[in-house]
């Protein structure tokens, strides 16, 4: 029997794939049918994702914390639920066929310790909903793709599967598979449906992203060499010992030290990372074993108190010795692996100077693909750093936090300046993405700990929110460009102007999105930037000041663009038609979300994102 959440999550991931397969059955001439089918598939995925949100939210809300308050029970934390699930699975009679923990773990390739492990928490889920929404609107924006409709739609839907899978995967290998899965459709979509220099752009995209992927793959292999026997259920270790003893015809005590357990499980690996951080920072006396495999983690651990990472029943001294003997417990390993992961994801974010694939890809990609690229794919970079790079190598992340923050700030300022110098509308938006995503990096880097960990928490919440907000504003703005490109057939800002009078509705929608992107309070772009700036000042004023000053630059380039596109009098644009109802329907959700998320960020998003972020912070902040 399968768990209900496993089924839900699998449907969520593979519903787009199923739709793509159904598309194969549609006769080639019925392009319109295919489009509608794809839209329905994407809408179905969005509905499923919303169902998961509701289910997950009910889960959070039903459990109270120690003080009787909802949403902040240990149950909201991914690692706590994963531990509980592991504990349940180890029971002689596994319970909960209808489990509601939103953790699913099935063996996939057991010989290589690879599991089909999925888990839901606020961070991943919010991005999943964003993905489903953007894919749906991108498909709605794809009506004017005439050539190879079937292939196009199939690729977009496969892309959605890859992205959602990556956001939900709890197994490093599974994550990597999904991460790569999304690369190929993107390559083909740019390479076949793109503009004039599409081959160049597609190859550049693939070379950059694959370079990043190789780095991630290297990190993946490095982590698989790590022996995690002291972090997993000891019953499993004992069984391995027995098996090995039988195989080698030796006694169990002789082979005990030869048993190695490897895993791709992210929760377990991050425990190793945290233990290594404690050892490397000279705090190994704080390491302790848990009393129960599913012991509930506490939110704010006492500074300098014990950190319970090892599995119950482990001899702590021996475990520390074993850990110390491994290469994982060396600074060079930590630095190297963190650098690999960070660079791998930084390509996607993108950070300066690894960003130069982005303008090319955006400029050449058709409008809906740009929407997906800016709205979703960049988020995978930020998500990867949040979910993998920092939790797996917290020590290196903490050591390098100032540098990471600096990278973020450089991205913010550099992106803004380059955007100011552009004359191509789409390129300008591409560089503004570089600038906006810099805030994500800065927010994640703002390590503070102990009694002031709240500041980092604001930063990380800000970073997650900034990812959502940027997903909304950036993909909507790319659609805005697409609309004007459809009418003018160029994107040259110097030849635009005067769009306000002929296209009032378009202009009104664009205004909201422009100002949301600029970070106007009351619109979604503000919240993330504001939170990140507040926590950045606490982290390092020297980094915060240029980030703050960048708001001037941002206003500068966006308003200048506004001036060049919408105001004035221009005979060339005077006869343009306003948004068609389909275009308006595509833009409307973005506009509504831009306003709603700006006004009620907590109620709508952070309320269920923050428990996950807080859990994340609680794990890491206690280490320093």
């Amino acid at each position: 029997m399968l768990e209900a959440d496993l089924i839900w999550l699998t449907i969520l991931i593979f519903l787009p794939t199923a739709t793509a397969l159904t598309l194969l059955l549609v006769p080639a001439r019925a392009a319109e049918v295919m489009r509608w089918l794809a839209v329905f598939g994407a809408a179905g995925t969005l509905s499923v994702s919303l169902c998961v949100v509701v289910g997950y939210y009910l889960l959070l809300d039903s459990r109270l914390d120690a003080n009787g308050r909802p949403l902040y029970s240990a149950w909201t934390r991914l690692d706590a639920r994963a531990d509980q699930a592991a504990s349940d699975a180890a029971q002689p009679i596994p319970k909960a066929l209808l489990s509601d923990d939103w953790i699913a773990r099935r063996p996939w390739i057991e010989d290589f310790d690879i599991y089909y492990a999925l888990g839901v928490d606020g961070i991943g889920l919010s991005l999943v909903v964003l993905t489903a929404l953007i894919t749906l609107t991108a498909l709605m924006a794809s009506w004017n793709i005439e050539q190879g409709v079937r292939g196009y739609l199939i690729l977009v839907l496969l892309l959605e599967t890859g992205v959602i899978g990556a956001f939900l995967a709890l197994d490093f290998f599974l994550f990597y598979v999904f991460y790569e899965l999304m690369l190929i459709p993107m390559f083909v979509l740019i390479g076949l449906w793109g503009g004039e220099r599409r081959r160049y752009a597609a190859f550049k995209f693939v070379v950059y992203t694959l370079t990043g992927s190789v780095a991630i793959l290297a990190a993946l292999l490095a982590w698989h060499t790590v022996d995690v026997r002291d972090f997993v259920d000891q019953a499993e270790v004992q069984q391995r010992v027995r098996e090995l003893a039988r195989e080698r015809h030796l006694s169990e005590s002789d082979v005990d030290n030869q048993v190695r357990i490897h895993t791709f499980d992210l929760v377990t690996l991050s425990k190793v990372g945290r233990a290594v951080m404690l050892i490397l920072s000279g705090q190994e006396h704080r390491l302790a074993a848990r009393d129960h495999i599913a012991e509930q983690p506490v939110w704010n651990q006492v500074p300098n108190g014990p950190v319970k990472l090892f599995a119950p029943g482990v001899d702590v001294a021996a475990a520390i010795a074993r850990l110390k003997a491994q290469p994982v417990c060396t600074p060079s390993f930590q630095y190297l692996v963190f650098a690999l992961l960070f660079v791998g994801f930084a390509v996607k974010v993108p950070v300066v100077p690894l960003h130069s694939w982005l303008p090319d890809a955006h400029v050449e990609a058709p409008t809906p693909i740009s929407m997906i690229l800016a709205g979703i794919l960049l988020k995978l970079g930020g998500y990867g750093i949040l979910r993998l790079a920092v939790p797996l190598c917290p020590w290196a992340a903490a050591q390098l936090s100032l540098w990471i923050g600096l990278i973020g700030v450089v991205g913010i300022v550099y992106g803004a300046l380059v955007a100011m110098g552009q004359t191509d509308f789409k390129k300008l938006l591409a560089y503004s993405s570089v600038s906006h995503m810099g805030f994500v990096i800065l927010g994640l880097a703002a390590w503070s700990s102990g009694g002031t960990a709240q500041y980092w928490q604001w930063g990380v919440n800000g970073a997650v929110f900034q990812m959502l907000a940027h997903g909304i504003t950036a993909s909507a703005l790319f659609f805005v460009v697409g609309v004007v490109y459809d009418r003018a057939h160029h994107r040259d800002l110097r030849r635009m102007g005067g769009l306000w009078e002929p296209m009032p509705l378009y202009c009104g929608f664009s205004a909201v999105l422009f100002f949301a992107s600029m970070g106007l309070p009351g619109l979604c772009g503000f919240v993330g930037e504001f939170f990140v700036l507040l926590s950045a000042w606490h982290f390092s004023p020297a980094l915060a000041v240029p980030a703050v000053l960048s708001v001037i630059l941002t206003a500068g380039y966006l308003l200048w663009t506004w001036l060049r596109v919408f105001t004035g009098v221009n005979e060339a644009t005077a006869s343009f038609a306003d948004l068609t109802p389909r275009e308006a329907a595509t833009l409307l959700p973005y506009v509504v979300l831009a306003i709603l998320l700006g006004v009620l960020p907590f109620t709508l998003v952070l309320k269920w994102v923050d428990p996950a972020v807080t859990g994340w912070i609680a794990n890491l902040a206690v280490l320093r």
Partner: protein
Amino acid sequence: MIPGWEATPGRLYVLATAIPLVVTLLLALAGMLRGWVRPLRARGGVAQTLYWVLGGDVPLRAGAYLAVAGMTLTALLSLLGLTLFLTQTATADSAGGCWAERIDWVRVGPMVAPGDALGTENVAAALPALALQVGYRIDALTAVLFAMVAVVSLCIFVFALGYMDEETQAVVEDHEAQHQYHRHTPVRRRGRFGRFYLFLSLFCFAMLHLLIADNLFQIFVSWELVGVCSFWLIGFYQERPSASQAANKAFIMNRVGDAGFLIGIAIAWSHLGTLNLDEIFRRLRGAEGGAGEIRRVQVLSTSEAGLEYVVVTGNDWPAQHVLLHPLTEQKREVFRDATESATANLHDYTVMPYWLWLVMGLGIFLGCVGKSAQWPLHTWLPDAMEGPTPVSALIHAATMVAAGVYLVGRCFPLFAPEVFLTIAYVGAITAFLAATIALVQTDIKRILAYSTCSQLGLMFLALGLGGWTAGLLHLVTHAFFKALLFLGAGSVIHACGHVQDITRLGGLYRKMPITALTMLVGVLAIAGFPFLSGWYSKERILSQVMGLGLYQPEHILLWLLPLLTTIMTSYYMFRLWLTVFTGPPRDKQLHDQVHESPAVMTVPLLVLAVLSGAGAWGWPLWEVEASWLGQVLEKAQPAMVREFAAITERGHQYHTWTGIVALACTLVGAAAAYLWFGRTPVTAEQLQVRTLVGRFLWQKWYFDEAYEAIWVRPTVRLASGIAAADKRSTTVEAGIAAHPPSPDRSEETTAEEATPPRFDWGTLDGWLNSLGDAAASGGAAVQQWQSGRLRLYVLTLALTVVVLLAMLVVLAG
């Protein structure tokens, strides 16, 4: 009407604030629907009906009436609120003289309550739980300003019904805008009545929200919102490049200030752990409402046990740190009055560096400088006159630009002494600078704009010298008479077919007597003639200034400049009035068409004239201190104003003399104006500047040119330089220009796919591309080995075996 409103009468204000927002949303929704169905209007059916219901091609007046109705309601509520506040808080004492409520907007993390297993003392106490809260706080200052904003807005909303009447037409010809190619065809566009009122309502919401906010966060939100409304309204005539440029300039200048504001907020957040103003004051100054004094301390040691420090007394500043008081009520008991040295629990008391306290104040003040158009960020305000005149009256004279003054008044206990001095100097310099420029301008609205800068400077000066009531009283009275003056100017402009140049106006008194007389009231009020509202506030400011002059003569500029400003103010205002309304008409043709404005415009003028005249009266009339408004405002005066007691005392002592000096200044200015412009007819040429100084002033001290050279152009050059260094732009120049892309770009372009420059060492992109090229050429080099010659292969094979064996031998051996 409002749930629980008996207990929480402040919600009245929330309702009053929300009304304009609802109006905005309704107008926006209507506009969106109209835009949505517009393409479908030809198809008939529901879409067509809906389109015509929403006004069709003609802008709908109903939207404007809705906005006016909403504003009327708000104004009535605000007056009701003011009455209630003044009657209720006179008796109620426990609330600290204000109505306040707040709720969490964002609170992240689990709230750590006492009794949590993890040990509160270790975790939660170091900083209060970080939550961004939203709330309102109504005290006398808010109540007065709220009523002022609502009433002035209402007047302007009504006035605009008349002033903007051409926007109600289906097609408007804009003669000031130009087509790109056909320069002489007038630009035609649809009327934008609804849009105008939409932004005006949104602005009112933001401004009122700013006033009721109880924390820096909400103030910042409103701060930006009023800025963006100002942006839209300055750029209302979007066909005119000058309007759009001015809108941009205003917004970006404001953003410079906002960046400072953000830094101030970030410091408060990082070191005080809260953005709520009352809490900030309490943390800095201890006692309730921030009544205590700042404790500057030298930290001796911090440890787990506690914080050891010495209080620094006297003037031996800069001290290292400022002592921060614990936030929560319970913790206050632990406080031990420490005069010489003391230890307290580390977690109860923290410190923040003194310089950061300074920077926090300066940052917030920079926000005020930007919003209130003070030197050195003053250049946007005169340009903002590109907007419609009601906008100039409401936003760029009466309310938004006054928000900076309001914020300084609101944050009074937050500032360090050095910041107060900065505020005073910035105010004095701006007052003088703007007045000198106003002397020679000939655009009626620009004169008023510079006058606004100048008057706002006086307010800042007063606040900087501790004249809290003086500065804020002037804020209110200035709003009345400056709105009046702008509306009067609007009336003139409307009557004269959008002529703003005083060299073309003249002799309008007989044609438009109501406008002329009401404007005269405004002129007298701003010049500071006795018994008009401006007199009461200006007297107080000058009294403060003279107090300083007698107390600290080294700050000579701080009293010399305002006196000169008073003379100049009187001069240029009378110059304006005399030139426009008296003497012979300078443009006969124009003069013949002129007639008095309709009642919808003159009634607001009359209302504002009454307010400008009698708005600040009290009994006895001749006693400045007895001003009713002043007395109300004094109730909200923060306790720490007593730090300026020395200045205020001396001002009081000599206030008869001050009155005489001030009146003399006013009269000198007025007399000079009369001598030049009143006695004999002045020609247009005589109004032009000729002297070197005159030219310098006409060019506004060349600030715009300087900023262009120092900031704008280098930034743009840097940006395009970096952009060029990042990536060579191939799409626009090479791609699109060379091959205009066809809409159907499917299969045909592969052949001529533009090859990007491969080794482009000048750009970052090129460097990275060259990495790829290096890999490619490396592959090509290795390819040479694959020669196809069998014998070579065999030889290589043999040699490889030999080498491998040799290595084996060497390494293994």
